[in-house]
């Protein structure tokens, strides 16, 4: 029921390389949304078309792809990339050329705050850190050990340290390992030796989870959202047990407003979606909504203006006029738990 010239939207995701764990689900979410938007009439009757490119998890490539999409393919807006570094890199081009961008990451370094047209559909790391601490508080853990990687983990840690004091939580051991490490038992042993009451694991791999169980840490483990995916759970094997995760989507037990999306996704892909699928879906819907509001041929600036409004998405409630370019409230988090390798949703929520 759509016709005419498609409205072209560029998307950059990491389908290969270290970020493939993010990029592949994001691409799935995007393509699903494309179908959904077009089925619902597209952009004022015109079809929407996502041109999805792979940046191979490399910021330099992301930059080239952005240049291609914007100046070669003349896209109206850009979605992605999947990784923070690439987002910051691409933001330089979109910001300078006034192209609206919705990144599948949380806001990064200070420059990004000036880029008022680069929205983010995932929470800033400060919020992720807060969610971890909220959960620790809820189980009355005051001494916490941390195991984190040098990339994602480092960034969250930087936010977590000052916040922990406010929550009256003492970080008794903070151990780091390099990205892609195949063994972190020694770090885990150091955490264990500090006798924490709970352990945070902030990583994008299954290794630390396995190691923590291997050396028989029995305290509750709380994982950051980055390691919440079915691939990692598979790779954890029997270690995927008794791990709490502050996140947004539990496909096995979705919140009411997530049900429709989860069903649609299951039908299309025969698997259960998680956070990144939902984030990409939301980003697609947001840009479509903005286009519908401002008109398919609106300039970048107009489109930006149209985007800057509260939006209730599958993942969370956003408000892109917020200072952190995402506006996700802590109350959007849900807390899941891995039990015997399966996700379950806990009743715990944080109210503002």
């Amino acid at each position, binding site marked *: 029921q759509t016709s005419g010239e498609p409205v072209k939207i560029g998307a950059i995701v990491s389908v*290969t390389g*270290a970020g*493939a*764990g993010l990029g*592949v689900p994001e691409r799935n979410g995007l393509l699903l949304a494309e179908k959904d938007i077009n089925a619902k009439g597209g952009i004022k009757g015109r079809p929407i078309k996502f041109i999805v490119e792979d940046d191979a998890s490399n910021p330099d490539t992301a930059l080239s792809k952005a240049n291609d999409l914007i100046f070669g393919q003349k896209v109206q807006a850009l979605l992605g990339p999947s990784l923070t570094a690439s987002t910051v890199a691409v933001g330089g081009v979109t910001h300078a050329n006034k192209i609206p961008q919705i990144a599948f990451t949380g806001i990064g370094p200070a420059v990004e705050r000036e880029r008022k047209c680069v929205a983010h559909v995932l929470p800033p790391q400060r919020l992720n850190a807060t969610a971890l601490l909220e959960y620790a508080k809820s189980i009355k853990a005051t001494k916490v050990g941390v195991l984190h990687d*040098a990339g994602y983990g480092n960034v969250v840690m930087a936010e977590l340290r000052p916040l922990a004091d406010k929550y009256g939580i003492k970080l008794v051991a903070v*151990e*780091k*390992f*390099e990205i*892609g490490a*195949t*063994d972190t*038992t*020694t*770090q885990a*042993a*150091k955490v264990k*030796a500090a006798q924490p009451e709970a352990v945070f694991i902030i990583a994008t*791999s*299954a*290794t630390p989870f*396995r190691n923590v169980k*291997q*050396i*028989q840490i029995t305290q509750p483990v709380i994982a950051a959202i980055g390691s919440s995916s079915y*691939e*990692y759970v*598979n*790779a954890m*094997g*029997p270690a995927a047990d008794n791990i709490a995760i502050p996140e947004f989507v539990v496909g096995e037990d979705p919140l009411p407003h997530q049900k429709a999306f989860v069903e649609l996704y299951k039908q299309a892909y025969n698997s259960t979606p998680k956070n990144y699928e939902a984030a990409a879906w939301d980003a697609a819907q947001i840009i479509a909504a903005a286009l519908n509001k401002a008109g398919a041929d609106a300039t970048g600036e107009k489109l930006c203006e149209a985007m800057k409004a509260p939006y209730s998405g599958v993942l969370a409630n956003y408000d892109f006029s917020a200072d952190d370019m995402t506006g996700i409230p802590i109350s959007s988090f849900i807390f899941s738990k891995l039990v015997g390798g399966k996700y379950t949703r806990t009743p715990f929520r944080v109210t503002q």
Partner: protein
Amino acid sequence: MTLSLVLQAIFAGVTNGIVYALVGMGLSAIFKGSRVINAMQGEFAVIGAMTTVLLLTKTGWPYPAAIAGGAIAGALVGAFIEVAFVRYMARKNASEDSFLLLTIGLALTLSASVLFFIGRDGHLLPPLGGEGVLIILDAVIQFHALWLIAIGIGATLALRAFYHRTTIGLSMMAASIDADGAATTGIDVGRMRTFTFVLGGLLGALGGILVTPLIGVDYQLGLNLTLKGFAAAVLGGLTNPLGAAVGGLTLGLVESLAIIGISSSYKDVVAFSVLIIIMILMPQGILGRAGRRGG
């Protein structure tokens, strides 16, 4: 720093060291038999482990049969690479750099193929000796790691004996040291090189299968293992399987002791600095031997 922490670090160091050593041994075997630095040695591990995983989950073969299947897959890929590429390039007198580029290219291809055809999931294999652990002074080591250590030591000794006690082992070394000399001594240089790659593939695949219960396998594992295996092999002297074992253990122990001794943030900095210092002090590798200087 408690005793149990130190012990735990040593356990981890030895386990990781054996992992590095297994990969390093394959690397040094291939170097010994062909003078090629095999930048895809880690991919052999991925091939072996992935094949075993697939055989186990998709066909329901019994575990030992799946392991054998994985090892054979590694050997076959090794043979294929020699016959399809290395042989042809050797005939054209290709330089060391181009062999390095070849194996880097193959490593990229294989890792991308695993991602493309099998997917990005990590997989585990059942540990030998079950999920059990040994606990000494609060430090934990898995039964599988003990198996791994035993097999690693056994493989080192077997490989050493193979190279110096069997004619075929000697011939493989001879063929790579001086091809013309070997050919005129009745050694089929081409066939020896094929054997070398079969052996390298076999060792790599077995290594991969053995480490998977501990560290899991996914498409990205290869490069990581190759780098560590390369470090182990070179540190030990490059042409000596025993050297790779010593190199691997040194590296593994330095890494884990750096974590408890200094700080996990500076683990790589410390470990690689120590590695550089060892090499400067022993420029032929730990078990290497200096050649004749001068004329």
